[in-house]
């Protein structure tokens, strides 16, 4: 029963994510792209929930769908396009890009299907928050410190770049 629900949910949200993604790359106007990106990101958050990564899901909404999307919209509005320029690159470039993307996709899918995955006995479903917190301050303390450093640098750099004058 719940399996069915989970499967249905997966297909729904996966479809939504893919639609969102395709929308992002195919919409004619930037804001439409943003709208689709919102859809994609939210669906990915839902996918995280299905993967029993609720903490990550919440963070995804908070950071991606919340902050980053907002920044993107902000940037869109700060950089108005005075003349309507063609949103897509030259046909040749599009084809080339499509070829590479398709090839990579084929490659990845093939690998995924062929590889004999050493699956765990039972999928890992258990509350994550505390364990993640523990790990972040012990095993992953250096990446953690590094990430904070990156954030700081990003902050300063962004300030410096976007400053008037």
């Amino acid at each position: 029963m719940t399996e069915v629900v989970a499967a249905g949910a997966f297909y729904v949200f996966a479809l939504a994510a893919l639609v969102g993604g395709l929308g992002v790359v195919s919409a004619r106007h930037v804001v439409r792209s943003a709208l689709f990106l919102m859809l994609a990101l939210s669906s990915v958050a839902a996918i995280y929930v299905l993967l029993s990564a609720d903490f990550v899901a919440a963070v995804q909404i908070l950071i991606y769908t919340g902050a980053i999307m907002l920044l993107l919209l902000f940037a869109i509005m700060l950089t108005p396009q005075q003349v309507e320029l063609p949103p897509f690159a030259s046909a040749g470039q599009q084809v080339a890009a499509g070829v590479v993307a398709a090839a990579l996709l084929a490659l990845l899918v093939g690998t995924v299907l062929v590889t004999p995955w050493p699956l765990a006995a039972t999928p890992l479903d258990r509350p994550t928050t505390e364990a993640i917190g523990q790990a972040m301050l012990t095993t992953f303390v250096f990446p953690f410190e590094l990430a904070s450093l990156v954030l700081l640098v990003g902050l300063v750099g962004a300030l410096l770049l976007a400053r008037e004058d």
Partner: protein
Amino acid sequence: MDLLALALVVLLAPFGAFLFNAFVAQRTWALAGLSTILGVGISFLASLLVFAAVQGGARLDVSWPWLTIAAGQARAVEVGLQVDPLTAVMLLVVSGVSLFVQIYSWGYLHERTFDAHGHPHVHRDPGFARYYTWMALFTASMLGLVLANGFLALYVCWELVGLCSYLLIGFWYQKPEAALAAKKAFLTTRLGDCGFLIGLLYLWAQTGTFTFSQLEPRVAALAPEAATLAALLVFCGAVGKSAQFPLHVWLPDAMEGPTPVSALIHAATMVAAGVYLVARTMFLFEHASAAMLVVALIGGFTAFFAATMGLVNTDIKRVLAYSTISQLGYMMLGLGVGAVGAGIFHLFTHAWFKALLFLTAGNVIHGAGTQDLRAMGGLARRLPWTFAAMLAAALALAGLPPLSGFWSKDAIIAAVAHYQPPAAWGGLAGAAMGLLMFFALATVLLTAFYITRLLCLAFGGAWRGVPQVYPHVEEAPAGMLWPVLLLAVPTVLAGFWGAPFVSAAASFATFVEGHEVHEAFAPGLAALSVALALAGIGLAWALYGAGWLQPAAVTRLAGPLYRWAVNKWGFDDLYNALVGRGAVGLAGAAAWFDRGVIDGVVNGVAQGTVALGRAARAIQTGQVQTYAWVVFGGLVIVAVAILLPVVLGFRV
């Protein structure tokens, strides 16, 4: 009160003062000054208690885990405190000198300037609070450096004192020279610190710990090459901090800072940190005899040539700066020949008398309104107390018994004499011995010479500055005089602790090294060094004391003598001219080589590159997306090339 608590008090009192000044007392100058003086005072008292406890045999070595990586305690990073005789002595020096300097600075920051009519004007420096804030931070971090029980904490404090030095050299950042000097000092020392950092990371990679007590056994297990490499890298840091030969250039410029700063940071404590570092990690150097020799040679050479530079400088503070470099060289020399006790002993005495020299120099500058020796003279009558104090310090520096400098310097010379290098080097060892001995003794002469010259130029003779100023030149206020006179006490007495007539059991070296040390006191050597010192003094006296006589009278009475004196007066110019011409010639040669050879090569390379670039630019569209496309296309191709066999393997 247990040792740990005491140590924490020592460390946190000045730091608290710093926090208070930084966040509360920035607007209220008096409060800032008082808090720093109070903090340092407390820490000084605590240091005395610590010292007493250590004399009573107490020791301390505690570590706290800072980062624990789950791969096991083997890679745990710890920070901690350590108190042993060496630390205790350093604590005494740092907090003591710092206390004197803090009190002194109060008066010094009320600067005296002379207007066109030679009338003095006193005004408080606008950066008063800032000054005491950084001073507190410096004291705290210097104490932390001494208390650290591992490389990590030590390195952090090491950089902190570097920062404070930068901030305080550039205290008058409106002056471009000051700003430049600060930058120069920071960058030069950083050069050495890079080596230091690499060294301690290398050690960590090799032994998996930063803590000295744990390092000691593990280092013993290290391969000699590794030990030598680590020792040399660590020594790089010491060279930078203690302004040893290749990296000595920053210290003279650092004199742009306020004089008390020079006294505390650039004479007594921070520059001695390098010496302390080598002493603290002696267990490492003992496993690297080559590194030891390098230390000794660099130390000796620095001592000698810094002294020669001190001979000719006309800026009172710069002369002292060169003297500091030279004395630090002595300490390194002592450590290099394995006499930790002697080296640290010299550090100990030097801290007092050099700080005293700088503070008295500060009084002179404060009174005369200039740093230029050529514009001084005849100040002995105006600044009697200052003169007395400076005289004591100068004689201590020159190494006349029974003043402190004599005993410590002599201990080092004796150690050099008794130093037998590893037999492995054979003839080289003998050469090294001779060289070191020469450095040690020649420097005695030069030291005595330049310090006497300084005294004569500043205090002897007639006033050579702006005439209207002289009547207003007066002794420094009490706030600047008492610290000086108090400092004179250790300057005179500190030496007896290590004097030969003290029983070996109670001697300084024994205390520091922790085991009975019999410094073979060589009366012959002592006599020789004293004789050299006297010779230097006499020479300088003859040269610069001669200025006392009225030139006219001299010409009338003893023409040849006068002419001889005149020629000698021209000594500096001659010396400078010689050096200058030599330098110019050298520069010319270098310039030719540069233009002819190096530029040729460089240009050739450049043109080659340009041509290559022209060839290559065709494929550079400047389109980020093109580049990305190439990257991913390449990725796909490579992946296919790698994976295809595997896939087939599965298929079959």
